[in-house]
């Protein structure tokens, strides 16, 4: 199925027979109910970030804050940053929410880059070059989707330790890229199969080798695929907690670790925790709101291709 079909639908076509009004109403009720179920936690999270602990834990659980405590947010930015000696400042500058956020972004971008390169090349070898065993290799890559990340925790830790790359960005990026690879190859295969093989053949006649075909024909045509693959890879690595907490350190922690550290062993300051959760979550959601159409389309194209 050509990609353009997915989106060039026309709602009028379906309205051949008017749908039963009652059924229609029922559909809307169902959709709206689920909408509320999805929106309510966000509302709850947002209002609870602006309340005091007393309101959250009893006097005003669901309502809007009686007093809007924007100071909760100011306090989150204070976390991990104390003025002090230069050495202290240097260290603490590493611990704040901005640092964790930029770590998350950096790790995600690098993971996506590595995974795209490795995925594109591997998919090319599997789908465009004829060789015995390419199907088998593809199945093996596909089984990778099912492997739980936890099983690799210790073996990877110990080999990274020997290589001396623990507590670095690489110690997060490499496992994330490896565990996203199967998904990337799966999505990429769908796209690459859409490129007519004749293109390769004519290029071949023109004297292009495999590398030439890859760089001059395949890569330029795969641009839409890159967006889709990036989204799938991003979804896999952005919220990962386990590896980040074990392999990272104060200078390399990502947002999920920041969030879990908000809950110190004796904290009772729920307003602060709420504000931290909002700050860790909402930038992502706001970006999503602005890009949702593109994100969804890429995601959907990937689904159909995969």
């Amino acid at each position, binding site marked *: 199925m050509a990609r353009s079909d997915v989106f060039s639908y026309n709602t009028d076509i379906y309205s051949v027979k008017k749908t039963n009004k009652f059924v229609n109403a029922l559909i809307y009720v169902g959709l709206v109910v689920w909408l509320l179920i999805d929106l309510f936690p966000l509302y709850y999270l947002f209002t609870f970030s602006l309340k005091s602990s007393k309101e959250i834990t009893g006097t005003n659980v669901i309502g809007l804050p009686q007093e809007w405590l924007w100071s909760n947010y100011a306090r989150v930015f204070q976390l991990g940053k104390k003025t002090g000696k230069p050495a202290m400042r240097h260290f603490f500058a590493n611990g704040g929410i901005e640092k964790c956020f930029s770590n998350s972004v950096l790790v995600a971008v690098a993971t996506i880059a590595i995974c795209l390169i490795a995925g594109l090349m591997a998919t090319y070898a599997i789908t465009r070059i004829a060789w015995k065993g390419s199907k088998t290799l593809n199945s093996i890559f596909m089984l990778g989707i099912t492997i739980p990340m936890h099983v690799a*925790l210790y073996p990877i830790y110990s080999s990274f330790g020997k290589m001396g790359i623990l507590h670095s960005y690489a110690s997060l990026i490499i496992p994330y890229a490896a565990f996203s690879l199967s998904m990337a190859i799966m999505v990429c295969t769908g796209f690459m199969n859409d490129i007519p093989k004749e293109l390769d053949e004519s290029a071949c006649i023109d004297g292009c080798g495999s590398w030439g075909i890859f760089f001059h024909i395949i890569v330029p045509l795969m641009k839409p695929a890159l967006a889709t693959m990036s989204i799938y890879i991003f979804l896999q690595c952005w919220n990962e907690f386990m590896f980040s907490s074990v392999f990272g350190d104060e200078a390399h922690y990502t947002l999920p*670790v920041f969030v879990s550290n908000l809950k110190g*062993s004796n904290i009772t300051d729920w307003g602060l925790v709420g504000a931290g959760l909002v700050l860790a979550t909402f930038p992502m959601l706001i970006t999503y709101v602005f890009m949702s159409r593109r994100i969804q389309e890429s995601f959907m194209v990937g689904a159909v291709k995969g």
Partner: protein
Amino acid sequence: MKMKRLVSVLLAGVMTLSLVACGSAAEPATETAPAATEEAAVEEPAPAAEEAAPAAEEEAPAEEVASDEPVTLTMWCIATEGDSNRHAYEQAIADMEEKYPNVTLEWEAIENEAYKTKIATAMADGNDLPDIFFTWSCAFLGDFVEQGRVYCLDDTLAKYSDELPESMLGNTTYDGKHYGVPTTMNIVALFANMDLLAEAGWDHVPVDYDELIQCCDDLVAAGIIPFGCAGGETWCVTEYLEPIIEKSIGADALNDIFLGRATYNNPDVAKAVDTFQEMIDKGYFDPAGASLPNDDVKANFMAGRTAFYQNGTWNCADFANDEEFLPKVQVTEFPVIDSSKSKLGQLIGGPSDTLAVAATSENAELAAEYAAELGKLICHYGYLDGCGLPAWIPYGDTSDINPLTQSVAEICANADAYVLFGDTAMSAVDKDPYLDAVAKVYGKELDGQGFIDELAGAIR
């Protein structure tokens, strides 16, 4: 002034006690250390403790050079933003920067549970350890000592023998060697909200077990929930169960069980567990606590939902910081259940929070000295903040310390014996079945007999 006298009484008391010595339990373990280190040496170039110690001694002259050259030390700890020790750590580190201008300390704090995973993984691997790390004493540190990952502090601590009593080192001594710098010590204590007790007609905390039961009955009759216990975190259940067992079977008997010198197959333990469950059955425990984390249960106690809260004395700081709540709260120890076997002053706790130095540290000797000084300062500031009692001999003006911590000091001054928290005293292998069984007791899946049967089977 009163406080200073108190402290000296307390320390005199503590020093005469024989604190739980993990070292004796760890003796057979340390014998196997060479085997482990051989293995480690084959797999990775991690220097073993035994090699590191003499090596560092030989390098002793290098220390003078090191004292002016800029050195960077790393430290891992659990004093996250929300932790009550955070303030003490920050102040202590600020002081240390003045004291050691040439040393840059890069430290990081990670949340308690994640920290256990992180340090255990790093220790198992042996590379990339920080120079200084926070650890719990006894079995937790013992595992790392056994793996040959910890630098021996005998030489360093010898210089501090006037300030750090030997009796405080029992939990970090393995095979006669010292491996840790204790910071604070804590015990389990029973906190009572006197306003709620007054509503049930009580003007004092119950002094014996019969009074406690009577008090609980009166509280229930007045519509007040006596106890809050966080079932969501099993260590909080042990804060109730361990004192009940200790006050039923006696400190020595419990200590023997924790350290593997006696089995769980002891009908008195079963009876104590049944006592705990009877209290649950009588509705003394807040049912909402079954799945709640400790934060919430503690908040409930401070908000006046439960009359008692039994937990570590590190909570004194938080209670004291709440001006509204502080006048209402009193602290005491759990009353004796069987006076033929136990008595007042038999407590659960001891020095557990510890700083240790990695054997792999390039500046191990400097790190050891730094850790000792830092530990002393953390102890000092932590004590002033009410985060616990000092393991080091206190100095400076301690008269501003909150009344709760002072009461705890008084309890400790009359202490008869300490049994370290079970999950700290036990090896990692024994800890799991123990905590599993404790969770099952609180969830009413096991009764007293079931508890001792399961543990007698699972542990040794």
